[in-house]
């Protein structure tokens, strides 16, 4: 891998940008999907509406969404903001359903016990329901993270710079080292994000570790 040895600085810079373009939507999307998912899980009439409309957004192919963003946002096509907004929309579309289903899966008797103790509304959400829904939500988050990394690389076609540049340039100039480095870097970044989420989930759910230890 001489190519990598010669160009590792570029790779790191691009990786940083890639992390930014994939990560920010992940965080923002996650934060937005929590209240939306909560509404969908709490008021069952809203569930089909919310889920179907976000599902619709998820149906739209990524490249198409990137391209259409300038019309919606009034930005130039090269602007990374297009990518960030589009990726956020994707992340939300994916996670709203996961959050809603995760919250719905919290057993009724636990919810009622919490309410009887005086937990209501947002406090109950934060203190009881979300932690218990964490495994399901975390699984969805992992899927979103890995998908995001892959989708963002496509943005190179629009001129938005990140690891996808290695892929495009490697292809155009037939430099296998560059192409393979690009692919490997994306995979590594995706796996790294995945590991961070898994680790974060373990930190947030110590009771599950106790269960595992007992079994």
């Amino acid at each position, binding site marked *: 891998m001489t190519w990598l040895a010669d160009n590792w600085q570029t790779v790191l810079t691009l990786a940083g940008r890639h992390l930014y373009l994939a990560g920010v939507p992940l965080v923002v999307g996650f934060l937005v999907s929590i209240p939306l998912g909560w509404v969908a899980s709490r008021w069952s009439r809203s569930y089909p509406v919310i889920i179907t409309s976000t599902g619709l957004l998820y149906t739209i*192919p990524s*490249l198409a969404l990137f391209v259409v963003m300038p*019309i919606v946002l009034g930005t130039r096509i090269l602007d990374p903001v297009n990518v960030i907004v589009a990726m956020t929309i994707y992340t939300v579309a994916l996670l709203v359903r996961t959050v809603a289903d995760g919250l719905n899966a919290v057993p009724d008797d636990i919810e009622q016990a919490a309410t009887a103790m005086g937990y209501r509304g947002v406090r109950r959400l934060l203190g009881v329901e979300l932690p218990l829904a964490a495994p399901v939500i975390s699984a*969805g988050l992992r899927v979103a993270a890995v998908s995001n990394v892959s989708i963002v690389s496509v943005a190179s076609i629009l001129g938005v710079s990140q690891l996808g540049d290695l892929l495009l340039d490697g292809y155009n100039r037939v430099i296998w080292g560059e192409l393979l480095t690009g692919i490997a870097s994306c995979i590594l970044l995706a796996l790294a994000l995945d590991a961070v989420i898994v680790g974060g989930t373990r930190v947030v759910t110590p009771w599950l570790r106790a269960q595992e230890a007992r079994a």
Partner: protein
Amino acid sequence: MIGSVLAWFTDPANWQGEDGIANRLLQHLGYTAMAVVLAALVAIPLGLWVGHTGRMRWLVSFANSVRAVPTLGLLFAVSLWLGPKIPGDLAFTVPSILVLALLAIPPLLAGTYAGIEAVDPAARDAARGVGMTSGQVLRQVEVPNGLPLMMSGFRSAVLQVVATATVAAIIGLGGLGRYLIDGIALGDYPQTAGGAILVAVLAVVLDGVFAFVQRRVVSPGLTGRHVGGRGKDSRSVAVEADRPSADVRSSA
């Protein structure tokens, strides 16, 4: 900007010929169909087998991990590797179809497996107990009951392919992606946006068609859409199957 995009759509010249919307649309549909069918030939029997026998479950997790590979990178790599080996125009389509089919396998496999897995164990036990052979249990009980998740996986696969086929235009594949790629290369935004809108509409329409098929094909006993009588907690089952599963959470 919107005006020029609309103009692109309404120009009749853009609808005819090899580069016309009609042709590109048909190409896109054709490639999608081919890739999905190829993937199905592999993924569905495999998924049925893993779900029915319960063996080699790791195959499903492994297939799901393919998600970490950047699709653009895969397209480029396969194109560079196989392209020179294939004569003529096929050099542009074969690598693409191959990658498309490969990417359609994980959702189809995961969906098929999850569908069979989710069948009520009591129903499975009863099926064996009343005297169905292994094949009969699969055909008469597991598959019909697994259909909601299987169709979910199928719809996921279709969307995955439609999306990737769009990007595959960059390695020479025809279809609606051409408008995006050519438009970007030429700086012709109306073409780019027009292509994007077409792809988006195609994706939504296809998904809608298969959602409709799903509703007809899945037994009312499963969806909760009953003729008369109450449906017990059918809400989540009905909506569960109503949209393509983006992740099919059962593995990993």
